[in-house]
């Protein structure tokens, strides 16, 4: 597709420099200078561009985070009901990155999954479009943005080390480029992260999509109903969604053992509670980091009473650890109210 854009731009009103290398690599097809000069006269007249249609993206001058949320929720900046989205929504808030949220769906994403971030466009012209930042790259993008902002503020060169020091959680995630450290604390960090990414996520997936009570009460109105009003299409989407969840769970073990899944999440919450202890945020930091965002993403979604959970198996497992519940409330009050 980029190839197509390249060739197409040769015929554009304003040829892009990108198209040139093509002409150079094919000396046979270069147009003779006099003809090229004649061609360059066309089009003879160029008017200003056409206006965009009404149904288009707003907030082009701001950073926009596309995530699962209701239209009203997007407008008010409420936390997303999807843990994967909420993690990055919370993280951006922790890092003081200004952004607005927009309700979207997976089809819109550059990598097939929400969230993604569309950085503010520097130019006002709709012909200049910034490229989207997928969730895997949001952390990196945030660091770069903060570095740029710092650089502007006191024009002193912050070393990379200092930057990383400022973000303890970020430092060791497997998302950063070099995850080949063997520091014992990093290994511990990764072990805790895998509790979230596997045990808690599995229980969450099972309880949301495969437990019938919750699917109809929570997943259906949140994920399927907004896509379409048509019953047949909704049924088809519901089927796809449940099949995807099932596929995700059977990827790890061929048989879905419900009891084991729930016990796994209970234990994982216990371990996370122990790790947090009496601190406000994980790893004794004064400000929450990426790990706090990851935990908050699940705890907030599970403890949000507005979502209308009907099967409380996972939620009950979480409620037993009051410091996790308080951790969630602390973040909610500080960043989402």
């Amino acid at each position: 597709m980029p190839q197509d854009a390249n060739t197409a731009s040769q015929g554009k009103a304003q040829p892009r420099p990108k198209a040139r290398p093509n002409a150079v690599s094919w000396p046979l097809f270069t147009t003779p200078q006099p003809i090229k000069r004649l061609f360059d006269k066309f089009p003879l007249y160029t008017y200003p561009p056409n206006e965009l249609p009404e149904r288009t993206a707003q907030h082009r001058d701001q950073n926009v985070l596309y995530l699962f949320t209701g239209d009203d929720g997007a407008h008010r900046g409420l936390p997303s009901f999807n843990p994967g989205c909420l993690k990055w929504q919370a993280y951006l808030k922790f890092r003081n990155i200004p952004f607005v949220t927009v309700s979207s769906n997976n089809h819109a994403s550059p990598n097939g999954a929400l969230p993604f971030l569309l950085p503010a466009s520097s130019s006002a012209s709709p012909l200049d479009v910034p490229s989207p930042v997928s969730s895997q790259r949001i952390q990196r993008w945030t660091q770069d943005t903060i570095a740029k902002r710092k650089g502007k503020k006191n024009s002193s060169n912050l070393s990379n080390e200092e930057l990383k020091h400022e973000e303890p959680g970020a430092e060791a995630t497997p998302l950063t480029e070099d995850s080949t450290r063997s520091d014992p604390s990093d290994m511990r960090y990764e072990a805790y992260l895998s509790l979230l990414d596997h045990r808690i996520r599995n229980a969450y997936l099972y309880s949301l999509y495969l437990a019938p009570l919750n699917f109809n009460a929570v997943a259906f109105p949140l994920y399927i109903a907004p896509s379409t009003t048509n019953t047949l299409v909704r049924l088809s989407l519901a089927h796809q969604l449940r099949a995807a969840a099932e596929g995700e769970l059977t990827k790890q073990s061929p048989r879905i053992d419900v009891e084991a899944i729930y016990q796994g999440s209970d234990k994982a919450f216990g371990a996370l509670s122990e790790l947090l202890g009496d601190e406000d945020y994980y790893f004794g930091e004064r400000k929450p980091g990426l790990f706090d965002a990851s935990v908050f993403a699940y705890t907030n979604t599970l403890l949000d009473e507005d979502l209308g959970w009907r099967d409380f198996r996972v939620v009950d497992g979480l409620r037993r650890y009051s410091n996790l519940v308080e951790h969630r409330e602390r973040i909610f009050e500080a960043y989402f109210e």
Partner: protein
Amino acid sequence: MADPLDSGDDIFGKLQKGVDPKIQEEKDKLRNEREHAQYEKARRRLGELIQDNSTLPTTISSIRVIGAPNTRKSFLERIFNPILSVNHDRPYTLAEAIREVSIGADKLNRLDIFHEPISLYLDRPPKTDPSTTPTDIDIYLTVREKSRILLKTGTSAGNGEGEAYTNLLLRNIFGGAESLSVNASLGTRTRSAYSASFESPILSNPSLRLELGGLASSTQKTWSSHEEVLRGAWTKLRYLTPNGSKHELAYNAIWRQITSLSPSASPTVRHDAGDSLKSSLTHTWTLDLRDNPMLPTRGTYTRSLLELAGWGPLVGDVAFAKTEIETQAATPVPIPGLNGISFTTGLRAGLLYPLSLNRESKPRPSRINDRFSLGGPTDVRGFRLSGLGPRDGSDALGGDIYYAFSTNLLFPIPRVPLDTPFRFQAFITGGRLLALDKKGANQNEKVGNAVRELVGNGWPSVAAGVGLVYAHPVARFELNFSLPLVVRRGEWGRKGVSFGVGISML
């Protein structure tokens, strides 16, 4: 591999090869000629007979259709029973009787289940039969049924797209000229397309047909950085009026999915990504009075389309009224000493008027897959596919209102006979494609402002060029050299040579 028998003489080889295609061709030709001669003779005899006896009182006592073992009797009865004299209170003249039967035979022809020609014989019933009257005639129609299964596979290329396809046609399935057509194709732009449609004449009337169909397809729309996946079904009622205009009334329910966005997709396309269901009623009216649809030299063509989606009981996820009109006129240019020059001109225009869905007070603005697109070799030549209209980044977004025109002057090619389907052409094409004005206070103001911009703001986007036209019976091929003259910033003109294939070209 050497087989002693085979190498000895090639009799086996010859047998294995089957009939020499040349001989077969010769045979077919002879047979055709024979059939044709027979047909001609019968026609002449009939002509003489009718002339001599045109006012002879006649009653049709029976009509026999011979050679239609797979066609239902009741189906044929519905065509021929009304003609039988038993069902008439007064006798025909012979001329009238022949005319009535010809109308019936013509109906058989148009059902597309019999080979042409259908032969017609008249006979007098034996006088010995006490039940007959002296005015009685019997009618024999000899037909040959077309093959009931037709399988076609092939590849094709054009408009920057290549594809491979399979087409299965089952004819006369239940003996009532019902047909089932199943298509599957894989291509570079239309990644995959599967469709099936079942069509049947209503009450044995070839001019009135009902069609039920469904499709599943996935098409890459590189000009707006996405892939559109469609799944849907339709039902159509087609009616051909005696004066040749075609009406088509359809209900469509289509689930559209905008997905697989390219990394450079614009915010507008990202905003429109996802699912939507279109539930719509359409009416299409076509009147084609051109002498040749692919290379017209005389006559006019008119087509109008009305689509109503999501309104009232139609529900669905999108609501709008869409109207589109297309006309073309062709006329020969009389220049003494220069034969075969013709001038064609075409105009298309359309408007999408957003409506409000049930229980919503405000109309929903249009989506990218409902808006019109313009530009490319089949409409505004000299522009890229969807090269006209609003653009976000590199994505064509389409518009809610448009017009496009084309004027072509066609010349015969020197030393190429006039009856070959090759012509030179010189053309000027142009148009404008706009979104409704966002700033309007209400829907009518939005449309009004857009109309003012459409016709009031300077020249339309225009391109001009020359080229070569080849009019194949099923599609028109063009090789053009063109240059854009007037564009809007962001619109994608096309300088130089381009190739186009189209069935309906502006």
